[in-house]
């Protein structure tokens, strides 16, 4: 027991330094520092009464907090910025780049913003479920305006903060109304998926998805893991999917790339539409970060397809109740942009053209990378997975050591799991990457 009765403030701080090494790392273990009893932060007992004020004032209440590790995806953006090598390549964050490797604001977006400014729209609070015009067009874009689920008003659509925010709303809904229900997540998946469900206190487990041997889909592994999961689990699916309706599982789509994968908005929504048309209930999170380049505007939606109009209305009311204590109501700007672009036939067509251009550029990059690697690599390794994989990313099959080597030796920034963002690659740089 440390005698602090005669400690001066500075001595107190040095005691603190010594103790730091012994302080258990973890959240909020300040109690170790002060007192054996948890939750009694200041030493108030016995002879230390006079010191208690000094202790309370001089030592942070957050002293026991450890430095969190940097975000695996966003974290190294800083490292990239700090790197002075001219050959450096950023292939980490999933953000589209032009051939000149510049960020890209779509022309339709600029047009929409100018229109909005000309109209002089106000900045009143949206309702908790977001901009009605946005909710309408986003559901129609996803399901198709003539889909029975839309016509029968069986979709609860609530504007969310891009993909993450929409997933979080859904996770909170699951936690509240399906207590104990599990979410099955593909292995691998976007790293933040786990964090979202953890913070929402929803249990999750992984299903096999990626086969490192083929650098493709482990179909049988996926089916078997989904079949083995508890009855009534939510299965988080990427765009293309096997239907998991055995054991009354509920499909949960994360659609972050509609239009971006193939260049066609309809094609990229076909799985979702198929499931909806068959009368299934499902959840779909949407994001406009990539396909409309609205990354920083945080615009997306959560859609819950229900088997009746009434259920959809009730689910929507509960989603609103989740949003209210989180951020009250969502931001208006991105929602208006989407509503304007998707809701105006001329702008909508222009958007489709720009999207095909973006998706096309990525396809060309895939082709060039494949050509380069096939030419350079004499080992006979099959690089065709680069052509078969869909969308912005490619799982190279590189392991952590190799990925680190890419960064350290070659100044190529990518995530440790071997994932690269092809959107950050130009045809010109393919050779270097090879």
């Amino acid at each position, binding site marked *: 027991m440390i005698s602090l009765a005669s400690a001066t403030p500075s001595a107190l701080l040095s005691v603190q330094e010594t103790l730091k090494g012994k302080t258990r790392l973890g*959240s*909020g273990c300040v109690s170790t520092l002060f007192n054996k009893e*948890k*939750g*009694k*932060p200041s030493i*108030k007992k016995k002879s230390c009464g006079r010191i208690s004020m000094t202790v*309370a004032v*001089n*030592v942070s*209440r*957050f002293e*026991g907090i450890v430095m969190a590790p940097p*975000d695996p995806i*966003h974290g190294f953006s800083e490292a990239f910025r700090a790197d002075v090598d001219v050959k450096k390549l950023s292939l980490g964050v999933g*953000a589209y780049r032009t051939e000149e490797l510049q*960020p890209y604001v779509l022309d339709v977006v*600029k047009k929409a913003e*100018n229109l909005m*400014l000309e109209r002089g729209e*106000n*900045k*009143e609070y949206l309702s908790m479920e977001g901009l009605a015009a946005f909710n309408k067009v986003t559901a129609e874009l996803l399901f198709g305006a003539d889909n029975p689920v839309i016509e029968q008003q069986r979709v609860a659509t609530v504007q969310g*903060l*891009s*993909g*993450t*925010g929409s997933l979080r709303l859904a996770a909170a809904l699951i936690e509240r*109304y*399906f207590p104990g229900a599990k979410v099955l997540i593909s292995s691998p998946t976007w790293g*933040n998926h786990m*964090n*979202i469900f953890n*913070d*929402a206190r929803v249990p999750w487990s992984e299903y096999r998805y990626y086969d490192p041997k083929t650098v*493709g*889909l482990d*179909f049988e592994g996926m089916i078997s893991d989904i079949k083995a999961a508890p009855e009534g689990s939510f299965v988080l699916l990427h765009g*293309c999917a096997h239907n998991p*309706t055995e054991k009354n599982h*509920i499909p949960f789509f994360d659609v972050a790339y509609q239009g971006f994968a193939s260049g066609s908005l309809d094609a990229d929504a*076909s799985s979702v539409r198929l499931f909806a048309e068959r*009368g*299934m209930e499902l959840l779909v999170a949407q994001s406009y970060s990539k396909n409309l380049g609205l990354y*920083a505007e*945080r615009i997306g939606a959560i859609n819950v397809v229900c*088997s009746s109009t009434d*259920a959809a209305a*009730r*689910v929507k*009311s*509960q989603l*609103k109740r989740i949003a*209210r204590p989180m*951020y*009250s*109501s*969502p*931001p208006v*700007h991105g929602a208006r942009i989407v509503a304007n672009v998707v809701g105006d036939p001329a702008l909508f067509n222009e958007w489709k053209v720009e999207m095909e251009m973006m998706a096309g550029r990525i396809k060309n990059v895939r082709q060039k990378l494949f050509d380069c690697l096939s030419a350079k690599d004499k080992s006979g390794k099959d690089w065709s997975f680069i052509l078969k994989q869909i969308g912005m990313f490619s799982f190279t099959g590189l392991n952590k050591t190799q990925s680190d080597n890419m960064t350290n030796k070659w100044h190529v920034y990518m995530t440790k799991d071997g994932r690269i963002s092809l959107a950050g690659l130009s045809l010109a740089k393919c050779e270097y990457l090879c």
Partner: protein
Amino acid sequence: MNPELASPSSSSDRRISVLARHLAGVEMDSKNDSISAFPTSGSDNNSVFSHVVRGPEDPILGVTVAYNKDPSPVKLNLGVGAYRTEEGKPLVLNVVRKAELLLVNDRSRVKEYLPITGLAEFNKLSAKLMFGANCPAIQENRVTTVQCLSGTGSLRVGAEFLAKHYLQRTIYIPQPTWGNHPKIFTLAGLSVKTYRYYDPATRGLNFQGLVEDLSSASSGAIVLLHACAHNPTGVDPTFQQWEQIRKLMRSKGLMPFFDSAYQGFASGNLDADAQPIRMFVADGGELLLAQSYAKNMGLYGERIGALSIVCKTADVAARVESQLKLVIRPMYSNPPIHGASIVAAILKNRDLYNEWTIELKAMADRIISMRQKLFEALRARGTPGDWSHIVKQIGMFTFTGLNSKQVSFMTKEYHIYMTSDGRISMAGLSSKTVPHLADAIHAAVKQVV
């Protein structure tokens, strides 16, 4: 994905082509097709959501919903705390329009993801606005500021952080307080207690009750404080009372969590309204602050605010910031850029900043004049009771003291929409509509007990 793969040579090709055909919408043969139509579409019996009940309408936002439904030409919306002009219209500040024009015309602007903590420039400027440009805590890097979704978002992120990392999970909130406060804190994982605040007898502050309750709070507990213009009562402590509150809280190690949604709106002066917070920072202690630009910059729908945590040391502040990121990332990854850019553009430009202070003062002054007019109107009608609290209370709201029966009466007979606790938003009044409200209050007081 190219569905027309050449005849598959490997099993993985075969699997991928099965999926590809599926993707292309080709009807799968029955061997592979395990999609079964969901038992009964259209009927609720087999819905997995059949046990989900309809949620009640939010009491505050619900007022606007009801107001919108009312066809009466004399209807008045005094529910939500959103500023209205003398003509009863929403207002976008001129300075905000100017800033937006600058932003939209700036060709170098992109829409790339902000960092998890938001727009750095916005964060720094927000901290300076509240704590003062020469604040030692800022100069010593002891303040971490992260952009959040207006006041609600800042409170939620702060509360989740505290629930995860702070040794005490109890928060004391004033009675009464904004209806959303208890929900935010409960969902974040804190346990909510109350301290006495409003005295219905005086329609002022129950200072004795406040002191007693905070004195008996568990050591180290968190205490929510409205920085100024208390919502819903409009009752604020005096500077002397704030000083006593500060001393009491520091002696018990209570952690202050300020909610500042009305800086500049209360008195019309940004620095004056920041005084209570600055008093707490000046004593070297720690605190949390949720800041909102919804009202004072009229940026309601843009959801722009900031959470600041003042820490003992720069090292602690850095660690705290890293943990805040872990709260934010799984909630929405990173915050929206538009509102932050507008605020930053205004705060960093001397001319725009000055214009803002003038427009802000004009809004605050209009509200103060509405208070005066309503008070005089009630006096002119000889409405029973002491109505001086209308001019004594501060900020956007007046706690009229009317009970829920009287409120219902006013809604039904006079088409006045307000929350059932008797709170009215002065910002929703104009010289033209004051007489109608005064008539309604007069009738309610005389006819309904």
